[in-house]
């Protein structure tokens, strides 16, 4: 008897579309290059989910002003005035951590789509926060096998002086030393974010006569570094590994300056022809008459993740969503991913390849997919980091 009631209830649940309200907050005005494609990706996913009929998704999009204080206020507004079922978004790590901290306090699900900081799932991780993108640690780890294989001895490092650059550098040193104990780090340059004095930095790196360079520069800093390095011949006899430089957001502005042969993590959007990605790319281009950037994939996947969780949980209740997301498996344009139960990190991967110039544009060549699941520390290590 009980069984039949349950079945009947389940049918009722399916008969009416489940209403879900997502509160999305992001620094649209501070990082527009990444976040405008992100927004387009979200809207594409929203249309797809709503066309499916089983769930009625509503997106409430807010600008978080790019500062933790404003972001927390905006999140409060989404929670108490808009009554959203879950929060999503944020870009900079400090904003992401502040909102994650609020989500834990207010007991609401937070899908951190963009922030890269390792802390959001490890040291500062909490029950209500889940993160989509491969973290700084994961992406750094993806570059290490190649770096170790080259058997270069003298490494120089350059990174933007804030948490992302610092933790990329620390992880890289640790992982490379483990793989190749005789390695030597001969120079370290940490210019302020967005304010690199590229000429002086390039000269200082050249002075150290490194065999290879590990860089985590991006955006304007990367462009300045590349141009000065090209002019001053820094890259002629030096192998360079650069985190994120293959992402269209950062690669496209380099145009004919694109340095050949750099090892990077990124997203080869035009060459990636798996069925799931081709379907995504065609839908995206049809809707926006523009090619997808990495931000597009992240926004698209984040909305689908929320929809998938609601579908599986058959509810928009926070606690049920949290339990459903733990270990949730889903498909993305980059292939299947799992939201790990142990640290709430998705196993979304990235592409590792080399840069090349084609028709005055930068592209990624000889790339391979690096599955996020293969580049995470052991479960014991992670459990030790999380303080729950």
């Amino acid at each position: 008897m009980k069984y039949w009631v349950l079945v009947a209830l389940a049918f009722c649940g399916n008969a009416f579309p489940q209403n879900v309200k997502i509160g999305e907050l992001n620094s649209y005005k501070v990082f527009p290059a990444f976040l405008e494609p992100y927004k387009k990706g979200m809207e594409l996913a929203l249309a797809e989910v709503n066309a499916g009929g089983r769930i009625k998704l509503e997106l409430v999009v807010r600008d978080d002003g790019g500062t933790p204080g404003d972001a927390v206020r905006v999140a409060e507004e989404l929670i108490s005035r808009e009554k959203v079922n879950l929060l999503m978004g944020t870009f900079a790590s400090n904003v992401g951590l502040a909102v994650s901290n609020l989500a834990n306090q207010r007991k609401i699900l937070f899908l951190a789509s963009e922030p890269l900081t390792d802390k959001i799932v490890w040291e500062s991780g909490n029950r209500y926060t889940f993160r989509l993108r491969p973290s700084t640690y994961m992406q750094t780890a993806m570059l290490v096998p190649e770096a170790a294989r080259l058997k270069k001895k003298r490494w120089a490092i350059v990174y933007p002086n804030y948490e992302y650059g610092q933790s990329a550098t620390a992880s890289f040193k640790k992982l490379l030393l483990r793989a190749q104990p005789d390695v030597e780090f001969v120079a370290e340059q940490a210019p302020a974010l967005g304010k690199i004095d590229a000429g002086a930095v390039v000269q200082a790196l050249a002075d150290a006569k490194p065999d290879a360079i590990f860089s985590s520069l991006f955006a304007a800093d990367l462009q300045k570094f590349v141009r000065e390095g090209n002019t001053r011949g820094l890259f002629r006899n030096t192998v360079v590994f650069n985190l994120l430089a293959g992402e269209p957001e950062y690669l496209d502005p380099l145009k004919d300056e694109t340095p050949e042969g750099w090892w990077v993590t990124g997203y080869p959007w035009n060459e990636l022809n798996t069925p799931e990605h081709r379907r995504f790319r065609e839908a995206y281009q049809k809707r926006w008459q523009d090619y997808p950037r990495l931000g597009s994939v992240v926004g698209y996947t984040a909305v689908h993740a929320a929809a998938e969780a609601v579908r599986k949980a058959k509810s928009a209740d926070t606690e049920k969503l949290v339990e459903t997301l733990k270990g949730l498996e889903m498909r993305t344009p980059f292939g299947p991913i799992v939201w790990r139960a142990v640290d709430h990190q998705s196993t979304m991967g990235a592409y590792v390849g080399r840069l090349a110039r084609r028709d005055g544009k930068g592209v990624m060549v000889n790339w391979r997919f690096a599955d996020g699941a293969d580049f995470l520390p052991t479960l014991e290590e992670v459990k030790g980091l999380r303080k729950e």
Partner: protein
Amino acid sequence: MSYSSVLIQFLNGLASASSLFLVAAGLSLIFGVSRIVNFAHGSLYMLGMYLAVWLSARIGFWAAVPIAALGVALLGLLIETLVLRRVYRAPELLQLLATFALVLIVRDFALWAWGPEDMLGPRAPGFAGAVQIAGVPFPQYDLLLILLGPLVFALLQLLLRKTRWGILVRAATEDREMAGALGVNQRWLFSGVFALGAALAGLGGALAIPREPASLDIDLSIISDAFVVVVVGGLGSIPGALLAALLIGEIKAFCIGLGYSKATLVVEFIVMAAVLILRPRGLLGRPQPAQRGTTGVEPPLPQPRWRVFAVLALLLALVPLAAGEYTLVLLTDILVFALFAASLHFIMGPGGLASFGHAAYFGLGAYAAALLLLRAQLPMEAALALAPLAAAAGALVIGWFCVRLSGVYHAMLTLAFAQIAWSVAFQWDTVTGGSNGMVGVWPAAWLASKAAYYLTALLLCALTVFLLWRALHAPFGYALRATRDSPLRAEAIGIDVRAQQWRAIVAAGFAAGLAGALHAFSKGSISPEALSVPRSVDALVMVLLGGVQTLSGPLWGAALFTWLEDAASRNIDYWRAALGAAILFLVLTRWRFSR
């Protein structure tokens, strides 16, 4: 470092110095004549970059540079005649507010016109490669820049020394009223100088595109560099700007060359603080001539309408009965910023001490609260009570140095200290959590509900504002205003001017620290942004928006600014521009909140 790399780093420093000089020279020129602290100078530089990149693709780099500079000059002329001309005679620092509004508008304009992606310009044709210097490749374009800086300097000197127009400009720099009395048409002089300054900013931007991409946040990053150069060199002094640009360019290049790249985060502000402490008017600055007649004597400060404010506080205390949670969150923010603005007003209005670094005290209070709670494991109530004392202690140190300076130099020294405090919070990972800051700064259980926290904030803010205002109408306040109105006479009747100002700064620091601590507990987290330049600028805008010589104005300014930001960012795509336009409207119509 080998000899060759010392030489190359020296040349690198020269190249950066040249481009720094171009943008700083224009700023210094404009300040010298019109006394306008042109916040929008960085925006003009940014427009120069965008215009040059955009034009280069069409007419080539070398044609694009002069046209971009000219275009920016025309825009400068437009800004001067349509906006600034209307506020020259306005009291206070209203011009500053007007130029800040322009920053917001220009940034959104650039986003609308050129899109969000960074635009890397072409290499300069003819100067694309490198030459070998001491066996090291060095960019030809950097050599060209090294020559261009001094060339522009020489041309400017020629213009200012040898032409009639230049002589008039120098006369106006030295004594604007006298020049006016002698029949110099100030309108055209001011317009011309502003256009020339804008042209220099545009030229600087256009010449920078082979070295760095045009991006949307270049405006604020270049303006702080330019301010530092202008102040270190001495306001209004073109040779001083050249010298300061050289000093800062070389120090930065050698910081990097010697492996202290992390220091570049703050080194220019350390240089500025050192220079200002040793030479209060910059390297080559001259004493500013006394201004006659432009600002007028401030009327005595009226007593606030205590009863009105008591009723207002009572009404605010009743809000939780009727309003939803979010209203309380927003009102808590408004209360915190109202207290912050009131504390800045305390030294800026009655004290006459403008500050560009008031966020230092706000941030000190916030960080002290977080550290006491998380690291010292104190109860939240104790952390909240002790945090303002930490901010006051900070004010004790910073104030001691700052009261030795006046005017813009004073304001810039406060900025330098705020930046130094910011960089400490930013770098000291093990204690402050570095760039990420700290999370988990929540209030005690009995204050966890929004209503309880709101009422506490209301009580503390109202009480502190009451005490500040009470002090202003006590002998303390009369003495403070005396130091503003006439330091000489104040000294003569036995007021220790510096000590009086110092006390005021410490009191203001205490109040700002309380605002910071309340802010930290209302957000649950804290990061270096609480100490950053934009936070200081926000406070300045709130005070100026409300009217610096009114008592309650800053409170209304804070409420309006916070509410506008909240409402506009939710409903309008280009909300920065909308906010800028609203501020500009208020400035041009001389809006004043009631006393």
